[in-house]
């Protein structure tokens, strides 16, 4: 059935990708095991069937991907671009000797830029392509099992091109102090290129780890990152998952993060978006064990013509699970932010306690934010709340700060900074928080400088 779908002639913007897939599948990728070939086939078949989403689709109502479809992106080549080492050095956290840093260039693991030697026993940090050979059982058990290709056309497209990406495995009972940092560098190249990194992070029972996923771009050519991350958190494991999207401001970024949580596990997810011209990130969390806890926080700081869409789905599948979700956005110039917060409480997921908040600050009259909460509750003993705010800086808050002696610019900056700081405060790793605080402060200074010129 999948074969017929792919063989059917396809027209429109999806066609070049299906053609590229055929070349990819018939070339080096042909040596892959059957299960992996099936996974790719199912992915591309789904993408060929649905194509790029349109704004007529409810889930894409606020995000038009048309700019992405104007001309096809070639499949990014592996490589060692100029400036990659410097870019990585500027982002690396902690002492060099203790670092757990893995770098991926155009979606391919780059060992020469990585330093994972300090990883303790029971911890694997590296590339998915290597894991196909070294830990095939774990990969096969989880890859593609959580992020459904039906969920999103870009997830399907990514599945078609599964080749490499981050692989992290933390064995049961291992407690990691140092955060694992995964840096994804896109190089652009001579033609507009797309990379499809595929990431699998598996944290076993009773283990603890922090993982930082970071997306950056080099060069001067526009590019597209289409990434899928599956995050498996077994019973009683504790995971901090930080994600920083600071692509170049002419880049495209489409992403799905799908987490799965077992009994009494704890996930703190903090997603930050500063970059990209057009970014769509689906963040799906499935709480699939009793007493699992999930914090899903996010922040967008946008300017110019940037468009960032965070689509979150929190799925309460088992009873006694609390979840907290706060997404803040600060939008300047003509930028636009979209937040969709779907909370699903499955039958039997009693005593779910879910709280969702979305705050949007508009710094310019032309900036725009859309907020879309969706509650789907199929159990009868649950607590779900949601709230959203939208608007310019509150004049009463301005007056309050001015009445304490702060001048107008300082007051405005402080109120804006607070939107970001509220989310950064949920980053437990101090070095990372300080680094991100620096990014936030720089963005606000630049914004303030532009607004005083305006």
């Amino acid at each position: 059935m999948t074969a017929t779908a792919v063989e059917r002639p396809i027209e429109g913007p999806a066609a070049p990708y299906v053609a590229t897939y055929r070349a990819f599948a018939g070339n080096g990728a042909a040596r892959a095991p059957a299960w992996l070939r099936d996974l790719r086939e199912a992915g591309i078949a789904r993408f060929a069937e649905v194509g790029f989403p349109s704004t007529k689709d409810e889930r894409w109502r606020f995000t038009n991907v048309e700019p992405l479809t104007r001309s096809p992106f070639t499949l990014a080549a592996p490589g060692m671009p100029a400036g990659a080492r410097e870019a990585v050095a500027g982002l690396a956290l902690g002492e060099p000797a203790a670092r757990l840093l893995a770098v991926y260039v155009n979606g391919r693991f780059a060992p020469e830029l990585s330093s994972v030697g300090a990883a303790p026993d029971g911890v694997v940090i590296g590339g998915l392509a290597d894991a196909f050979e070294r830990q095939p059982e774990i990969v096969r058990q989880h890859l593609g099992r959580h992020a459904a290709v039906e969920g999103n056309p870009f997830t399907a497209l990514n599945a078609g091109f599964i080749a490499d990406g981050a692989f992290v495995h933390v064995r049961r009972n291992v407690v990691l102090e140092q955060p694992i940092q995964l840096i994804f560098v896109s190089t652009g190249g001579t033609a507009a290129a797309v990379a499809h990194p595929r990431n699998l992070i598996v944290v076993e029972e009773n283990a603890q780890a922090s993982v930082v996923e970071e997306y950056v771009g080099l060069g001067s050519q526009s590019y597209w990152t289409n990434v899928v991350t599956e995050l498996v958190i077994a019973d009683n494991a504790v995971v901090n998952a930080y994600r920083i999207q600071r692509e170049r401001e002419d880049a495209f970024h489409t992403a799905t993060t799908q987490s799965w949580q077992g009994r009494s596990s704890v996930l703190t997810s903090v997603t930050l978006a500063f970059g990209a011209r057009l970014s769509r990130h689906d963040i799906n969390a499935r709480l699939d064990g009793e007493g699992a806890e999930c914090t899903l926080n996010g922040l967008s700081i946008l300017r110019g013509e940037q468009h960032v869409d965070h689509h979150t789905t929190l799925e309460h599948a088992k009873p006694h699970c609390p979840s907290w979700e706060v997404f803040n956005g600060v939008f300047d110039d003509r930028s636009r932010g979209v937040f969709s917060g779907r909370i699903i409480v499955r039958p039997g997921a009693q005593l779910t306690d879910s709280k969702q908040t979305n705050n949007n600050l508009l710094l310019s009259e032309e900036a725009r934010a859309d907020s879309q909460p969706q509650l789907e509750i199929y159990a009868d003993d649950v607590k779900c709340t949601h709230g959203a705010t939208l608007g310019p800086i509150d004049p009463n808050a301005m007056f309050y700060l001015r009445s304490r002696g702060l001048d107008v610019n300082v007051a405005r900056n402080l109120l804006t900074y607070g939107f970001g700081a509220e989310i950064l405060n949920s980053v437990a790793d101090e070095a990372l928080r300080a680094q991100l605080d620096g990014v936030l402060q720089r963005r606000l200074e630049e914004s303030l400088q532009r607004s005083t010129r305006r």
Partner: protein
Amino acid sequence: MLEIKNLHASVEGTEILHGVDLSVGQGEVHAIMGPNGSGKSTLAQVLAGHPAYAVTGGAVSFEGKDLLEMDPEERARAGVFLAFQYPVEIRGITNAYFLRSAVNAIRKAQGLPEYDPIDFLDVLQEKLQAIGWDDSLMNRAVNEGFSGGEKKRNEILQLAVLEPKLAILDETDSGLDIDALKTVADAVNKLRSPERSMVVVTHYQRLLNYIIPDYVHVLADGRIVRSGGKELAFELEEKGYDWLRPETAVAG
């Protein structure tokens, strides 16, 4: 210290203050009482410089300077402080950070060196000790998720740290139970000094059992209709405000 002469003010085109006269000397505590809608809060907001209120007539001088000419932040730096009736929540900014920003803004204007975060902790501890409070509110976001009592306490804490020459307390007692009221009033009393004047705006006489004013004024329909000593507060408690209204009518 503060001279208010024939002050008229309006909000959204409706005049609320119809000619307020009030004189507050250094170190004096004046209570302003009045029924709902009498203009008490408007007076407090106008003195602090809220941009939503338009001054349409009269004059206010503070230490000989024209207060109405000054921006809200200039008034704060000159030593005017308003404890808000409804303190504003500031997300993501801790109380400690906010207080340090405010203190440093004022110190900078006075030509004094600014405090770094470590020095400021000591300053803060000292101020907290002076009013007998702990630092439990310090690392929470400003007023966010605070109870009504905590918000009012937080205003008084700012008063303690910013050390104004003139403190205007706008219904600091509203919504407080008796224990919270005593805690707040006790701190305010510790902050009284011969150099610091206070204007205590309140709807209820109860607060004045704990903060004993030097003078009591009754504001009704946008004017001060009666002034007296602290015993005027007891008279109001007994008789209510209605007996003052005919006098307003005559005066008006």
